[in-house]
């Protein structure tokens, strides 16, 4: 097993030597790293130099009980053939994080714009966070788990006093 995961282990070694964090090689070509948000940009710069030049996706997971947003960056290296996933946590009440647009450029732009729209995460350094799908939206960010979309739709679209629309309130 150790021989199979040699190149994955090397990536984790390189990262932990510099950032004092533990990584996990889940299986061949699959590596996970968790870091605090202050060191995120430094780590991203470092792994870009290591050869992780492709940002496949950024995603946000909402953990309302913990009061955090979990950001997940999926990175692919064409030379190493490894999918590296970087995770970091943000305070849910104040979700501000540095943008990775200086590192991965257009790769990052569309993802940051979408996550700003759907979760309300602020990406500092990203100039263009205009809405992508939700033009004229004035409600809360809709992908947050505490957003009651059924109630929102009832309020916005259906009239309880209308006999034909009363069923939507049952």
């Amino acid at each position, binding site marked *: 097993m150790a021989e199979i995961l040699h190149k994955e282990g090397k990536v984790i070694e390189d990262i932990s030597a510099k950032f004092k964090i533990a990584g996990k090689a889940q299986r061949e070509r699959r590596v996970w790293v968790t870091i605090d948000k202050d060191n995120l940009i430094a780590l991203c710069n470092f792994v870009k130099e290591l050869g992780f030049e492709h940002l496949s996706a950024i995603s946000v997971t909402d953990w309302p009980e913990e009061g955090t947003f979990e950001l997940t960056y999926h990175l692919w290296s064409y030379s190493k053939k490894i999918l590296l996933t970087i995770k970091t946590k943000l305070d849910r009440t104040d979700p501000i994080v540095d943008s990775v647009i200086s590192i991965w450029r257009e790769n990052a732009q569309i993802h940051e714009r979408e996550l700003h729209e759907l979760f309300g995460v602020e990406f500092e350094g990203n100039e263009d966070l205009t809405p992508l799908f939700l033009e004229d939206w004035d409600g809360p960010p809709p992908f947050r788990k505490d957003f009651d*979309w059924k109630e*929102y*739709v009832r309020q916005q679209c*259906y009239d309880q006093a209308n006999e034909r629309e009363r069923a939507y309130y049952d």
Partner: protein
Amino acid sequence: MVEQATKMKRLINAIWIFNWFNSCGFCELVPLVGSRWDMERFGMIITGTPRHADVLFIAGYQTLKSIKRAQVIYEQMPDPKAVIALGACTMSGGMYWDSYNTIKRLADYIPVNIYIPGCPPRPEAVFEACMKIFHHVGAVPPHGRKFAKAHRG
């Protein structure tokens, strides 16, 4: 109504269609385009631009963003024009009735002439809707008949 029927008279020779379909929308019209139902034998042709179209086919749910584009398309079409809305989504939002980002009644945004129910509607139902436009023209009141007579010469 009479005026509308008179305008429709000019549609009677053929229907040129512009499609504005979201999500699974076009699956409703695909059988019509193919050889089995073959709408071209009735002169129904899909145009590449709304400026050549007589009829706007709208199907699938419309989002708050796409409905604005649909309105622009409708405005670009020359008079006389008709809008045929296909499927459950255009009538009530369909399975997206509780989505925060879709419109619920198409008629609140665009003047719809005929709704075709179904999910998806049968191709026969689409033909029937088009026939209803023709019949509507055929059954026009006296003012319209006078118009038709004048045209027969």
